């Protein structure tokens, strides 16, 4: 019961502070620009009588760019909206009025996590789904395995959310944000270095990429999602940004899930053990 009350209050907070509305407006603006871009490209194709095969491949690539943007937006939104929830309430003392109620600390943390997870789910569903819908509606293109891709993007966001919660039980809002963004940066760089290794055939770059993914597997989850969603032809071409010459394995995805569970367990434990 305590968890649901906390999840509900987290939702209401996001609604009252217009966080949800702002995020949705930003998402809608993105969809609008994406749709206009797609529309212009389709008009140009029609004017030049481009071959359907080329047209389909370019529009699919544009869809992947759109989905990659959705992924980035979702991760950044997840961090920005949740970075203050524990750290801020601990430093302001707001948490004291809650933590002295007959509700266990794990319920406070899990309840808040559930609230944010629900919002992330809604956001990913709307913006990710919206992007696919716009691409299909305007250009008739769809990604391969969209559900699997969406679930992987959701896993990535939940992973980032959980890491934000974990460090939020230790550090202030600002420090927490710096740490989580830094970790995402490590994951991002590691992913691209690993990608580069496909061209340079550097085993050491592959190792560096894997180590980065072990430190923070968020980018690896996205690269798997991209691999799942791209067309077989694009996947076979090794010169697009989403060509996964070194595709993260399902073992890595399993590791990301394990990472999430461990991070959540550490967050619960440390929130329970710390002084408020």
């Amino acid at each position, binding site marked *: 019961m305590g968890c649901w009350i906390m999840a509900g209050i987290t939702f209401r907070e996001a609604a*009252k502070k217009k966080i949800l509305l702002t995020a949705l407006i930003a998402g809608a603006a993105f969809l609008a620009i994406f749709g206009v871009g797609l529309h212009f490209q389709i008009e140009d194709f029609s004017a030049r009588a481009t071959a359907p095969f080329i047209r389909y491949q370019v529009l699919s690539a544009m869809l992947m760019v759109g989905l990659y943007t959705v992924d980035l937006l979702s991760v950044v939104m997840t961090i920005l909206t949740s970075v203050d929830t524990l750290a801020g309430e601990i430093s*302001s003392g*707001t948490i004291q*009025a809650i*933590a002295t109620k*007959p509700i266990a600390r794990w319920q406070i943390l899990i309840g808040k996590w559930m609230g944010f997870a629900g919002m992330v789910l809604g956001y990913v569903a709307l913006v990710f789904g919206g992007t696919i819908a716009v691409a299909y509606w305007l250009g008739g293109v769809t990604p391969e395995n969209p559900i699997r891709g969406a679930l992987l993007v959701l896993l990535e966001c939940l992973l980032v959310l959980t890491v934000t919660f974990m460090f939020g039980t230790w550090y202030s809002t600002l420090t927490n944000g710096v740490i989580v963004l830094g970790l995402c940066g490590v994951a991002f760089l590691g992913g691209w270095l690993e990608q580069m290794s496909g061209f340079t055939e550097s085993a050491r770059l592959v190792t560096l990429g894997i180590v980065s993914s072990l430190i923070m597997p968020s980018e690896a989850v996205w690269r798997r999602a991209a691999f799942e969603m791209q067309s077989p032809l694009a996947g076979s071409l090794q010169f697009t940004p989403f060509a996964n010459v070194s595709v993260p394995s399902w073992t890595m995805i399993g590791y990301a899930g394990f990472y999430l569970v461990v991070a959540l367990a550490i967050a619960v434990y440390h929130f329970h*053990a710390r*002084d*408020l």
Partner: protein
Amino acid sequence: MDHSDRFAIQTKSLRKVYGNKVAVRNLSLTVPRGSIFGFLGPNGAGKSTSVKMLLGLVKPAGGTALVLGAPAGDVEVRRKIGFLPEDFQFYKWLTAVELLHLHGRLCGVPRAKLRARVPALLDLVALTPHRDKRLQGFSKGMLQRIGLAQALIHEPELIFLDEPTSGLDPMGRRLVRDIIRAQRERGATVFLNSHLLSEVEITCDNVAFLKDGEVIASRDLRAMPEDEIRVVVCARKISAEIVAGLSKFGASASLEGEQLIFTVRSAEVLPDALRHLVAAGADVYQFTPERVSLEDLFVRIMGEDRGL
């Protein structure tokens, strides 16, 4: 022997250390059920840390604490505990009504009961006209009052109030004082952490004085009028022998010129003390007994060098 029926709070050698700083050294105290207990001490004495330990917000480094018969921090016992933190802060986007409903639900109060309880509490803390205003528009005093209301939402047996009158005007203080007394009337125990000694003096039944993380004295304030009486005497012809003779009344005395000040433990000895002065030849033209205020007592116990 189980004292949990008699005492709302029992602590023994409670200790808290932050790094190499000892916040609470050795807290041993008992708070009788149904009383208003004042917890006094200078800044940095460890009052707030002690309260946080009793509420389970802060983990003790040593010692034991029983609150309503259960270890401090027990989740189930919190159903019977209310808490107003110092400088109450909460989600500013909530209205007064929403805040009370939220805290009521967190305390497990059924919705049907809350529908009657919330308006009654808003009325009690005089915030009914502001019931639908968001907290972001509240003054500090209004926040304190809504904070007090949330602490009472589930009719707790034990209420911790950390500086409940800070930020309140005289009317607000009176309101809070009346509410605290009403809680005692219904059988609740109130643990009051306050800097305002005059407030504590007229509200509390018992007080404990905390210094450097340790209870160094405690008093039953209901017995205070008979406990300490300071007498100011203006007289001529007072000799050192006359002053020394006051010791048989259990008095400690000091003489400066023609002004003699002495303290006795009971008003019953005052006529004899006066007779002693006159019989010894002093020309007494003023003899004024004064009750020792809590502030005097505080300064004496804490030492002159420590301010509030």
